[in-house]
Every structure is written in C-alpha cells, then in structure tokens.
C-alpha cells in the first residue's frame, strides 16, 4: 500500500453523510485538493479506482464512495474511461438503483462524467430521458466487471 493509496483510503473511509462542521468539511476538501497538487490527477484517479475495486466490494460501500467522490468534485477532472469507471458502481449495485441509490447520486455522476468526457448520449439537454441503467455501453461495461 503506497502513500497515495493510504491517503485515499483515509479520505474515503468514512460515511458520506457524517455530521461535520463546515470547517471540518473544508479541511477534507483541502486535503483532497492537496493530493491532486502533490501527485497529479492521473495518479490520484488510478489510485482511487484501485481503492474502489479493492475496498468497496458491497453496494453500500461503493455508493458511499460515489458520494464522497461527488463531494470532492473530482468529476471535474478528466476521466479517460468514463464507462469503465461508472459501470463499476452499477455492477456493485446490480443496477438496483431503487434499493441502493435513493438520492440518485449515481445518476448525477453519470450524467456529469459522461458528457464532460465526450459522450453526448448522456447529455440531458439533448437526451432528457437518458438512463444509465439502460445504456448498452454501461450494461456491457458492467458485464465486463462481472466477468473479471
């Protein structure tokens, strides 16, 4: 476990909705920003994916990680494999968003990450009825996770 992995592990090993003061939240945000400054986004992203796929093996843990990823606004950085990334969450919850994603955080992430990374099919202005759960690319990518 290298230093960056340990840092990410620490940042994400908490409940997304724990009761923090705004100052405590700011400190976490600062720490997340510092990681990117120190290691670069590419390394942070790849290490986060390693954390996600090694530590977040249940629906609850993977959705929790999605919330924290959202709160750090890491969706603003380039994600070169958006379907592979987002499909991990859907694979873990077996596309059961009703049970595991009551607040639609995965829908929010998907409809943000995909268009930002060149996939216009998830652009809600053009496709108001877009659904990750019925996107053939998402389904195929989740199937790949399942078969790994």
């Amino acid at each position, binding site marked *: 476990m290298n230093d960056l992995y340990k840092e990410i592990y620490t940042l994400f090993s908490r409940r*997304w*909705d724990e009761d923090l003061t*705004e100052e405590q*939240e*700011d400190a976490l945000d600062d720490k997340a920003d510092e990681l990117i400054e120190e290691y670069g986004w590419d390394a942070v992203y790849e290490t986060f994916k390693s954390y996600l796929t090694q530590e977040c093996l249940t629906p609850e843990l993977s959705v929790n990680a999605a*919330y924290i990823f*959202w*709160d750090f*606004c890491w969706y603003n950085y380039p994600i070169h494999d958006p379907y592979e990334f987002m499909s991990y969450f859907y694979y873990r919850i077996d596309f059961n*968003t*009703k049970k595991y994603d*009551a*607040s*639609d*955080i995965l*829908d*929010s*992430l998907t*409809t*943000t990450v995909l268009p930002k990374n060149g996939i216009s099919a998830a652009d*809600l*202005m*053009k*496709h*108001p*009825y*877009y*659904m990750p*759960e*019925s996107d053939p690319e998402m389904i195929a990518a989740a199937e790949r996770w399942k078969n790994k």
Partner: protein
Amino acid sequence: MGSGSSGGYGSGGNGSQPYAPSYHVTSDMLKMDKKDPDIYNPNTGYFKNPTATNLETAIDGNRFVFNGNRAEGTMTYVLDKNGNIIFGKRCNPNDGRKRAPHPTLIGGKDPQVQCAGMITFRKGRISSVDDRSGHFRPNSKSLEKVDAILQNICDNNPRLFDKNSKWRKS
C-alpha cells in the same frame, strides 16, 4: 414555443426559446411524451413527480435536505409561475426504468414555468443551477430570475450555498 415573447432576447444557444415570461413544453417533446402513458396520461396530462419539493421548505438549518438526507447531486428544477423553485429526482415512480422529466415537477396537461434546468447540491448546499431543460428550453435570460431568488436566500443564510458558488461570492 414560449407563452409570449418580448423583444430583446432572441433564441439562445442550444436551441433555447425566445425570451418569455413563461414557457410551455416544446411541441416536439409534448408530442413524444403523449406516446408514453407512464409520462403523460391522456386525461390528466403529466403525472406529478412525488419527489417534487419546494426549495424553501427543504431548508434545515444550514443545509437543504431531500429524501431524509442532506441534498446531494444534480436534480431537475423548475421556477413555477408563482415564483417557487421546485426540485426533484429524475427517477420515474411509474416505471423505475424510465425518468421523470421537468414537466412532472408541476404535472397536468399544460405545465408552465418561468425557468427550468438542473440544480446541483454538494453537502446539502447549492453549488450551481443552469437552464438546461430539453422540455422547456428556457431562454438564458430567464435564469436571472432564479439567480435573484437564490441570492436572496443566500443573503439570509450563506451557509446554504457552496463556498465556491457565485451567490456566496457576490
């Protein structure tokens, strides 16, 4: 198809409608929705999104709450004709494999809005809004009304807004 156009603001980018005090659903989207009974009932029109929530009633201390938790993520919103910002989930209660578009935040045969788009929450605080609604396609000028309402809320309690949001910075 705005409900009336006043001069000065033509059609905006992304195919938005000319500026109007209020907007109906665009004819092409209405035509499409009428083909889907899970979205539009011939007798009652658009169903009412059960998660539709008045923004001001979602305030709980220094955060917005939604669905029992602090509000997170991006949701649909409309500014209704009475000046209320209504937001809700995209999930369609009639069929989990479908979505609930902007008109369902109001419901009925001819929902009208002053503006519509997506509202983004982070840690129970508003971080941004836009005018991206494929159903209403409001003119970007209409977003100023939403901005003014949010600025008023922010002036009363800045902690309801993300520290990097434009309302908190102004």
